[in-house]
């Protein structure tokens, strides 16, 4: 809901490969815009101040906090979310190993964690468990106690190496 005099800005970007041109209120966060205006509810809103990692989205190839970037800043950028139909082999492998290892319970943090883990696996083919922990240190999970998540990322890395 916007009032008539809400400052807005015209943006053009791609979301999961689809070109989008629209006008956004300048104070709307990227994740709010994706959820409420684009209709992609896979990126979640947890803390809204950059602590929990539930809102991760990928902007021009880098994982960022969707709550700490404004939608207007997506102008000219390529945005990818967990819903991306062109999900990389890494994301698909992670989704599979998370499922197999039951590395989620409520699933609220899972999209953010998978995107961050995929970024790690893009840079490091054979991460140590310590590296996995460090890479995921910016994501909160209140259900699993993290062990299963680390196991699942470890397993996905092995599978991507063809082991």
């Amino acid at each position, binding site marked *: 809901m916007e009032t008539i005099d809400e*400052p807005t800005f015209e943006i053009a970007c791609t979301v999961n490969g689809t070109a989008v041109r629209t006008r956004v209120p300048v104070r709307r966060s990227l994740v709010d815009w994706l959820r409420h205006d684009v209709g992609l509810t896979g990126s979640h809103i947890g803390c809204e101040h950059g602590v929990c990692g539930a809102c991760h989205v990928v902007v021009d190839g880098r994982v960022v906090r969707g709550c700490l*970037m404004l939608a207007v800043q997506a102008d000219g950028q390529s945005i990818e979310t967990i819903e991306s139909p062109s999900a990389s082999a890494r994301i698909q492998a992670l989704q599979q190993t998370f499922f197999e290892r039951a590395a989620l319970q409520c699933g609220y943090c899972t999209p953010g964690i998978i995107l*961050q883990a995929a970024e790690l696996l893009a840079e490091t083919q054979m991460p140590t468990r310590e590296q996995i922990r460090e890479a995921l240190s910016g994501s909160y999970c209140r259900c699993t106690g993290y062990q299963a998540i680390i196991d699942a990322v470890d397993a996905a890395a092995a599978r991507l190496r063809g082991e």
Partner: protein
Amino acid sequence: MKPARFEYVRPETVPAALELLASHGSDAAILAGGQSLVPMLNFRIARPHMLIDVNRIGGLDRIEVQDGALIIGASARHSEVLRSQLVHSHAPLLREGLKHVAHAAIRNRGTLGGSLALADPAAELPACIVCLDAEITLASRRAERAVAAENFFTGLYTTACAADELLLHVRIRPFDPQWRFSFSEVARRHGDFALAGLAFAVRLARERIDDCRIAFCGVEVAPRRLRKAEYSLNGAEVNNGASRVAACGALAEELEPMSSGDCPAEYRIRIASALLNDAVERLAREESFHGDD
């Protein structure tokens, strides 16, 4: 938790940004990485009338060497600085410090200039920049000026940067190969703000400390060189325990630590001393291991 209303502008050149700062400076906030500003907007702790987004200013994120000195543009993102080979070879301390800064997704967005301009007392980069004796270049419509890092941080979240000034870049002079650097800190969890962090640079000549620089984050309201502690180490053999004890004693006298319920001043001094003691001990071990190289 949504920001109060603001006007959003996105200049594409430095002069355009300076023009906006000249007319709106005190009512405006610079939006760089947004990793501290946006939470403050969401909490409505900050309510600027205008956000000046500097992310589209070309070249403001450069990392290059000029006349031997390393220049890092204000909007260079932490992850780029961390990855940069130039930073690795010219200012390895920054890389060591950055490993402790927040988490991957935050580093993908947060900027060097943003961290310096905010001057959070617990932030690692201001202490590193002071330890490196770097120079910070500020510009306004009036003039451009370079400020020594130590004069830049003037207090709690306070810097020498005026309301109409924009931080352009940081300049780090070259160090000869005898210099060694280390960054170490104590934080409750990796990536959290430090209870105390030490940026330490030391120049060795034949296993003797020839020169050194000590700066902390998380201890005082702003980072500065701790000259009494530095003085106690200068000239000492690197494995001389007595000079280590003297330096830690000097720290306890010299530091004016912040105090909070969960981390009283005395405790911060103890952590700071332990960090310095360990850093010098580690250095002595490495030197005896490497011999004279």
